[in-house]
């Protein structure tokens, strides 16, 4: 049996003889692998974007919103009735075992003033637990305390965007800002988070104690009314349990019968995001599948050229057989030739695809993610294509009759 290094040497020589032809054959593979790498990079980018948004939103998050009110048969939009209260939030934390933490919220748009600068932003009244629920850290200062919530203290945490617009180079911690004319002490700055999945800038916000928001900023019809309750489930698996328990509990607390519409709605944001992620996955697979069609075409190109090569080299095959080449010696030689073509093409394709998609991604502002898996997959796939499409020509070569092959002109 011929040894592999010698066979590789013979194949390289044969490929060098027809440089143009080998190059064009490889081009098919290069284009195919480039397409696969680029498409997987686009899909990978989409996935990583969604992943980042999920992470920025907070994990295992459930949002409870007040339901739509019905007034004389006309159903109003969601959130029009003040049905959720601080007590609901406390009850959820106390009686739903699948819930780790809750943060009620009440907010509105307000003008924030610092010296001669002012900025309109969303002021969110909430409790300290919101930071944990939304996986949000502080870049400076401290969070507000339960005590400050109880006493409706006029303290505020500013989002990064608000800080940028009001303070410039000044350290905001300890400064006094006015919200709706009321002086608030800035006690901390929220770490930058970027855009949410809905496209809002999450850093354009101010957090104040919920009691302060209720009593001093956005007077409520009922004491203790909240606009939304954010809930963190204990684990990802507990999400649906938590959803169920919350619905049960609130129906009971709000005296809603089994056939009545609930006056609140429970939204499991994490599962929504996961759906988005699996959609991105499907897109990646689809793009990859389309791209791999061109890889298949590249493989057929290799087979085509190998068949021509076998016919052209009939006499050479005859000589090799006469001096003692066995069936697999001949097969191996042509298979190795095909694999070299496909692997060379594949490697160049991986390079072109990686660099190309990074450059394109930079210009169109899309995060291209080239995973090691997609690179290895393309490489392995190239080798497989070489073996698969090289086999038939090699098989044909090995079936030649040496006497006739030697006579071939």
């Amino acid at each position, binding site marked *: *049996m011929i040894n592999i290094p010698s066979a590789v040497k013979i194949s390289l020589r044969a490929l060098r003889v027809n440089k143009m032809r080998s190059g064009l054959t490889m081009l098919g593979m290069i284009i195919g692998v480039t397409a696969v790498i680029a498409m997987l990079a686009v899909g990978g980018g989409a996935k990583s974007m969604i992943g980042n948004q999920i992470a920025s939103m907070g994990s295992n998050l459930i949002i409870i919103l007040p339901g739509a009110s019905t007034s004389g048969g006309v159903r109003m939009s969601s959130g029009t009735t003040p049905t959720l209260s601080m007590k609901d939030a406390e009850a959820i934390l106390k009686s739903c075992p699948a819930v780790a933490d809750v943060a009620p919220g009440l907010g509105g748009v307000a003008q924030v003033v610092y010296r001669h600068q002012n900025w309109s932003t969303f002021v969110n009244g909430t409790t300290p637990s919101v930071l944990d629920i939304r996986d949000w850290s502080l870049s400076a200062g401290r969070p507000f305390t339960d005590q400050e919530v109880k006493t409706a203290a006029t303290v505020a945490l500013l989002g990064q965007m608000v800080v940028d617009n009001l303070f410039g180079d000044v350290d905001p911690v300890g400064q006094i800002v006015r919200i709706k004319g009321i002086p608030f002490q800035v006690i901390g700055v929220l770490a930058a988070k970027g855009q949410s999945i809905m496209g809002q800038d999450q850093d354009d916000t101010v957090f104040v104690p919920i009691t302060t928001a209720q009593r001093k900023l956005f007077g409520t019809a009922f004491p203790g009314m909240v606009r939304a309750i954010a809930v963190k489930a204990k684990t990802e698996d507990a999400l649906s349990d938590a959803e169920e328990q919350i619905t049960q509990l609130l129906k009971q607390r709000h005296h809603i019968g089994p056939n009545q519409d609930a006056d609140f709605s429970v939204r499991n944001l994490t599962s929504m995001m996961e759906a988005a992620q699996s959609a991105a996955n499907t897109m990646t697979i689809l793009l990859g599948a389309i791209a791999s069609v061109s890889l298949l075409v590249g493989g057929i190109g290799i087979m085509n050229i190998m068949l021509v090569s076998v016919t052209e080299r009939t006499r050479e095959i005859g*000589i090799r057989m006469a001096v*003692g080449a*066995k*069936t697999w010696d001949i097969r191996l030689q042509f298979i190795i030739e095909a694999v070299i073509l496909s692997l060379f093409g594949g490697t160049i394709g991986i390079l072109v695809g990686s660099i190309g998609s990074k450059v394109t991604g930079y210009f169109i502002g899309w995060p291209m993610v080239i995973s090691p898996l997609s690179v290895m997959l393309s490489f392995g796939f190239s080798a497989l294509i070489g073996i698969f499409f090289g086999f038939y020509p090699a098989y044909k070569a090995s079936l030649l009759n040496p006497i006739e092959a030697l006579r071939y002109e």
Partner: protein
Amino acid sequence: MWALRPRKRPKPPDRRVCSKMALIQVDHITKVYDLGGVKVNALNDVSVTIEQKEFVAIMGPSGSGKSTFMNILGCLDQPSSGEYLLEGEAVSKLSGDQLAEIRNKRIGFVFQGFNLLSRTSAVENVELPMLYNGRPAKDRRERALLALKAVGLEGRDHHHPNQLSGGEQQRVAIARAIVNDSSIILADEPTGNLDTKTSFEIMNLFVRLNQESHITIVLVTHESDIAKFSQRIIRFLDGKIISDQAAPK
């Protein structure tokens, strides 16, 4: 002069009763080709024995079956019936890969058209048979250079076939035939493409290999001048042997 020759070859097992085993023993072989329903008898009941160290010339007009006979001797083809024993081994029962191994180790071919690989240097052409028996690369090169030296092509090892004359190309082919220590050289009109002077040079090389390295040589030729270099002449006509006698001196 072929320095690598005195290597000990393990004797093949003696499966036959006869005390002295012939190198080539052909018993009543026939070869029938089916050409579109018409059966052609290329060989018709041919029996020949060739001993070791013989130098045999095979003559006959075109279509007399001598090429078919050579193909069978060279294990490139199988007879339709009859028995071919090579060093006592029944070749007709072997598979394609086993035949390839026999061609590799025991038989060297020399063709009229040289049949060298183009775009491949002389020394690499000579290395070719050794590629298929697992010799390490360094060993291969060493033996190939020695074989080239033995056929008088020392220093021309990196020339490609198109840079060599016909006689030199045939020498490369002979070097390729002996490089694996084959015991038989089968030459099919080896001087057919050469001028008279070069033909005689090549024939002298064959005679030397036969006498000094004791290689058995079976050679097909049309020319009685060439056949004279051999010891024995077998004539074919219509698929049959019509004469088998010592060569005139």
